[in-house]
Every structure is written in C-alpha cells, then in structure tokens.
C-alpha cells in the first residue's frame, strides 16, 4: 500500500486497474473506453493492459450493454459499465430498475448480481440541460440497487473498488467537475469495504451540513467561511444514497441541533428530503430549527455560464443558511 496524490480521475483508473488485475472475471464496457481511454479518460491505460475483450468499446446502445451486464453477472462474470454522462441512465432505465435491481429478488434470492454501473454526472461545465444532471434521485426509490457518490479521489478509489467486489448491483455516481480534483489516495488496498453510511469530514459543534459529490467541497468551503465568524460547522459526506443510513447524521444533529442538507438536484424529489425526514423521525427533539435544504431550483439547467453558476449552491448560500438557523 502506498499513499500518493492523485486526481479523482486517476483514482477511478487505479481502482479499475487493481480490481481488473485482482479478478479475471471483471470486465468493463462502455462507449469509447477502449483505445481512447474514455471521453473523460477514466479508463486510461486499461485497454493496453487488459485488451479489447475485457475493455470493451460498445456501440451507442446503453440498453444493450447494460442489459448484457445482467447476462454476464448471471453467468459468472463481474461486469462494470461506464455511462458517459449520467443523464444517459434514462436510456437504459428499464434494464436497471426492472431488470438488474429486481432479478435477485424475483429469483427468490437465488442469484447474485455483481454489477457496477459507473455514471459520470454533474453540473458546472456548461454542458446544458441534457448533460449536467447527477441523476441522484431517479433511482432512489428502486429497491435492489446500491447507490454511492464519491466526493474525493480517495472516495472514488475506495467506493469503486468496494462496488466491484460487492455482489449487488451498485450505481456509482461520479461527478465530472471533480475529475481533476487532487487528493491523497492509499492505493493497493486489498480489504476494501463498501461504505454503509455517511462520514464526518470535519467536526464542529454548531451546525451539521450534509452534502454529496461536488456539494461536499462547497460545504467545506462554507465551513471555512463560518469558522472565520466563530461558527464551527460539522461537514458530513452522505456517501451512500441507497441504502440510506442516517445514524451518523442523527448523532451529529444531537450535538449541533442544526441541520442543513445540500444537494445538486431540483428541490422537489431530491434525496435531501429523505435525509431530513429520516433525521426528523430519529432526532426530532434535538432540532433547534427546521432543517434546511439547499438544492437546485426546480427548473432544468440553463446553458449560459452565469445562469448555471447561479443555480448551483454556493458556499456563501450554505454559510448564510447555517447562520439563519442559529
């Protein structure tokens, strides 16, 4: 095991490479992931090492190759698929929600479905309405899936490795605005574990801020701003959206008595409501104020740069929201 600075993108590549070395039943399929290494270079070098059979360029046929993952999983392989933009999950939605997620249950629990679906989503790059969604909530209500969201290179590495070893279908939602984020990653780890809940990234006694993906960085920046004003915010990375486990958040709220949840999705239907509702069930009496949700407004992503920026929760908004609750 060695720890080195790497980007989120490199961490993804490292996880894929290690797991493909570890188990010859793994393979990855996706568009332009072979010789080209992937449109976002998240498969760089894999084709050279593992060849065309295990690093498989597909036609533009998400239903086809995501469905094929189920066939592979049922017959002894451990397929990984890359969905170039998370928005395209819509194209293969049926295969995921009616097929992959339910096949184990419908068989009476007699089959395992070791599939990883990596989807690169998120706003901030001026890709407009059809290429900027994180798609976090489309599948929140789908039993049988696990959903994880890495917010840093270390998480990208650890979650992906764990997802590949998991015998359940795991949707790994990556964020394109984080691809060049750098951070320390301990690679060569063999005993990876699937996260089963959130993680405290920064302690604080005055308020709890929960966020996912690119919003984690915004939350941390907000906490910096708050510290300058003497307010200590605890920042929690939600990490796992399904199964959703809010125990740690409840513990935090019992200490801070204030909850703010930040997500990069429309206000209606986002997972932040689920966190709020669950925390309210568990820690109602500890809340000094109604929990706040900071989300995208309830309209699609506009293209014009300043409009896109204005939509995305900022550290300033997060900090101001925390202060308004104190």
């Amino acid at each position: 095991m060695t720890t080195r600075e790497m980007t989120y993108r490199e961490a993804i590549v490292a996880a894929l490479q290690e797991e493909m070395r570890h188990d010859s039943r793994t393979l990855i399929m996706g568009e332009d992931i072979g010789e080209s290494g992937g449109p976002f270079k998240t498969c760089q070098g894999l084709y050279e090492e593992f060849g065309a059979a295990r690093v498989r360029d597909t036609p533009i046929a998400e239903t086809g190759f995501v469905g094929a993952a189920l066939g592979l999983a049922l017959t002894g392989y451990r397929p990984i698929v890359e969905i170039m933009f998370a928005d395209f999950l819509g194209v293969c939605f049926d295969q995921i929600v009616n097929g992959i997620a339910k096949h184990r249950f419908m068989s009476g629990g007699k089959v395992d479905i070791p599939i990883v679906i990596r989807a690169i989503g998120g706003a901030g790059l001026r890709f407009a309405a059809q290429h900027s969604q994180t798609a976090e909530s489309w599948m929140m209500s789908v039993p049988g899936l696990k959903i994880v969201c890495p917010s840093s290179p270390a998480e990208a590495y650890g979650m992906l490795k764990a997802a590949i070893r998991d015998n359940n279908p795991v949707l790994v939602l990556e964020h394109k605005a984080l691809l060049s984020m750098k951070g320390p990653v301990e690679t060569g780890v063999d005993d990876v574990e699937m996260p089963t809940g959130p993680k405290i990234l920064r302690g604080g006694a005055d308020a709890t801020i929960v966020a996912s993906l690119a919003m984690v960085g915004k939350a941390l920046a907000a906490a910096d701003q708050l510290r300058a004003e003497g307010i200590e915010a605890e920042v929690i990375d939600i990490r796992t959206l399904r199964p959703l486990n809010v125990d740690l958040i409840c513990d935090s709220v019992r200490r801070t008595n204030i909850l703010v949840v930040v997500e990069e999705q429309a206000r209606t239907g986002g997972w932040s409501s689920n966190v709020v509702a669950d925390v309210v069930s568990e820690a109602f009496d500890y809340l000094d104020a109604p929990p706040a949700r900071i989300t995208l407004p309830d309209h699609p992503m506009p293209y014009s740069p300043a409009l896109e920026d204005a939509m995305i929760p900022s550290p300033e908004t997060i900090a101001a929201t925390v202060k308004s609750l104190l």
Partner: protein
Amino acid sequence: MAPGSKATKSNETPIPLTSAERVELYRTMVEIREFEEQVQRSYLEGLVHGTTHLCNGHEAVSAGVAKALRPDDYLSYTYRGHGHCLARGMDAEAAFAELFGRETGVCGGLGGSMHLTDIDKGLIGAFGIVGAGLPVAVGAALSAQLAGKEQVCVCFFGDGATNIGAFHEAMNLAQVWKLPVIFVCENNLYGEFTRIDHTTPYEDLVIRARGYAMEAVLVDGNDVEAVYAATAPAVARARGGGGPTFIECKTYRHRGHSRTDPAKYRDPAEVEAWLKRDPLLLHRKVLADDGLLGDQEAEAMISEARAAAKAAADRAAAASWASADQDFMAKTYV
C-alpha cells in the same frame, strides 16, 4: 409469404435424430401441453394468482430448440415461458409451486408465473418487460464467448418484441461481436390483441435480420423436427465461433394472450386452420406414419403426462405458502 422475405433453409445437414429421440420430442411437447392445461384448471380453482400466459400451440418451439442444446447452455425467455423451462427440465412441481405462490416454488413464491428462473439449469430468467431479455441473452452469450467453453445462449421472444429498441440493440451487439446467441422469434402473429400486420411492415420477421446482415432462418414453428433441424446447425455454428442466428418460428397460440383474454379479435377461420396444425397432432402423425408411435402408446403418454401434471400440481398445492416472516432484505441484497 411477403415479398422479399423467402424462407431460407439452413444449408448444413441437420444432426440426425434417433427414433427414440424423435419420440422423446413428442413426449416433451405432451408434457408441456399437459402442464399448461393443468395450469388452466388450477387457475380456475383459484390456485394461480394474478395473470398467467399459456404457451399452448408453441410446444414445438420449446421442445425442438431445447433438443439442440447442451446442459451448460443458457436460455432467456419471457412471461410466456413455462414451455421453455419445462423443455429444459425444470421440475414441474417446483414450477407449479411458484405459480401457486408456495415456499417450494422455484423462486420461493417471490417471482410468480412471469418470472420462472432456475440458474442451475441455465434458465437465466423470464422477462416481463417485452424485449428486455434480449440484451441479457447477449450478455450471457458474451460470457460464453469469454469463457471459451463453446456454450451458447438461446433467446426466446415474440413477434411483438421485434418492435422495441432492446431487440435492435441486442441484435446489433450480437452480430458485431459475433456472439454465440440464437435469437428464436416465436411469431404467433399477435402481440396481445393486435395482429402483426398493424405493427410491422411485413409478416415474415426474418427480414429484420437483414438490417444486421445476420444469418436468418424461417421455419415452421409447429413442426418440431423442423425447429430442431433449423436450430442444431445454428447452435453448431455459434459454438464454432460463427456468430448469431435469427430463427423465426411461425406458430400460433391456442388460447388468449393471458388468462383474461378470450381472443375474440381473431378470425375463427384463422384459429381453426392453426388448430389443425397443432404441433402435437402434426408430430404424432409423422411418428405414426414412420411406425414409431402407435395410437395407444400416444394416448398412454398423454394420460401419463396429464396424471403427472395433476400429481405435481397437487403436491405443489399441498406445500406451505411462501412465508411472510422470511428475510426479504436478504432476498433483495446479498
């Protein structure tokens, strides 16, 4: 036959069947027929819940195709999948128990009639969403290709399924990757209540394969030996790395789409013509003509199969209900 879509015959000599095997094909069909007849009776007794899609009339496809397979091959099929499962050796009692919602069901009562799965027999899944099984079959065929053990995957689906996107993506993937998959289209002329001429430009769906330059065979799906003869070389070619084949089996369902459907939308003359071509009758006659199966033997076979189906259903009905106390989360996630 529609213009531009002549029946093609496989140009390889079919692997010949022994007399015993030819008779076995009949027995398989009879067993499927009697299973479905028993399902119908059990349905009326309130033992089968929700809906069920019988395959009476399609037996030659299940039997003929299954005969061409090895035990380690894979099959994907649909909600109308009882025949495929039985031809592959699924235990009839476990199948009935599943339809009855019992603990002893092949899926523990969680799947039901539309989702019979038996992974140890290569029965990888019954798909309730039209077309959804095709990409999955492609995945199993890719698995076979990667494993290098000359396995194949057979994928059953209906005429209606050739109109949905998943069909197209699967066909193209199979062809471009030269996968050992046999696409078996059971063209029974109807998707639910709608006749094929309302939903596709031509009735002979073998034309679909042309868009992918895929080998295609049009076969009389009510002639079990013809189905076998079309399938065996396709399977052999697939095992040898020769890629996929599309086999269109012309057939007809004797009953409605599902249990609530009296199928009044069909021309009685059409129904009658097809009933005359009942695959069981046809093959029985062939065997009789060839001196392989006397009337008495055939009748005995039928009675035996009927009794066996009844006995299996009775045992299934005596089993415990699937338990509400089981750990459902362990059935959902590993």
